[in-house]
């Protein structure tokens, strides 16, 4: 195991983070951090966007009804988005730290967080597509039942 990861002889044959890859990684971490921070801010903007039009209606029952439905949806999306972007933020900070301190441990931590970020994003895409297919299937059944009842 030691031979696999830490041996200096082995290091000579490993891929290096040379000057070019270092510069590329620095830009990647800078933009990854911006994306993650914006993703942390956007749920708050979404909540404000729901509250302002609802409060303009003036009717307390209407406000409660409008906010209840929308906020549950926003909350679910926000939690998923925040968890996803925590991985992206951790990838950015760990990798940037490793480039500054030349810490192999931080670099590996960053690589692990990048893996988790892409994995979670991939799983979310599969879930979203499955839900979309299910929704289309239910709609087709509903249309079929509706057409059958009319005839």
């Amino acid at each position: 195991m030691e031979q696999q990861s830490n041996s200096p002889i082995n290091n000579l044959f490993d891929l290096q983070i040379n000057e070019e890859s270092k510069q590329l990684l620095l830009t990647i971490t800078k933009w990854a951090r911006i994306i993650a921070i914006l993703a942390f801010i956007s749920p708050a903007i979404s909540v404000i966007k729901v509250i302002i039009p609802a409060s303009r209606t003036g009717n307390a029952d209407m406000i409660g009804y409008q906010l209840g439905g929308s906020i549950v949806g926003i909350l679910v999306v926000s939690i998923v988005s925040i968890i996803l972007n925590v991985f992206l933020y951790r990838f950015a900070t760990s990798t940037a730290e490793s480039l500054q301190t030349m810490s192999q441990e931080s670099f590996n931590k960053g690589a692990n967080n990048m893996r988790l970020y892409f994995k979670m994003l991939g799983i979310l895409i599969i879930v979203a597509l499955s839900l979309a297919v299910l929704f289309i299937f239910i709609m087709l059944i509903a249309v079929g039942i509706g057409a059958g009842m009319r005839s």
Partner: protein
Amino acid sequence: MEQQSQDTLFELQVDYEAGAHLKEGVKWAQFIGIMLIVLTAIAAFVLLIAFIALAGVSTFSQGIRESAFSTNASFISIMLLIPMVIGMFIGGIWLFRFATRCRQGINNQDQQSFNAGLMALRNYFILYGILSILGTVGSLLQLIPF
């Protein structure tokens, strides 16, 4: 040459652990890239159909002022969506390129392919970052009461 070998001992490396993480990461990145390409192609097709349908409605409802206004608004919405779809399509291609080049680099210990993969990832993050900034600015502008 000896100096270079000495340097590698103190440089960061894609060691066994990082390589394993990166390999699994690029597998998922490749899947996401393919999905982005396919989904944006479908979205472009849907937008094209919507555009043709709206063009038909526009010529039919030229005399009706209100209808013409809503058709114009729909046209603008589609026009705003087109750069978004193109951006996502290009992003998908970059993510796919990152995955293939990076995997090639790790498997063959090829520094050039690995750096080419990182370059594609950098382009993807820059594009995604610009789209995120535009999206956030758009959301903030919607909050301003007119």
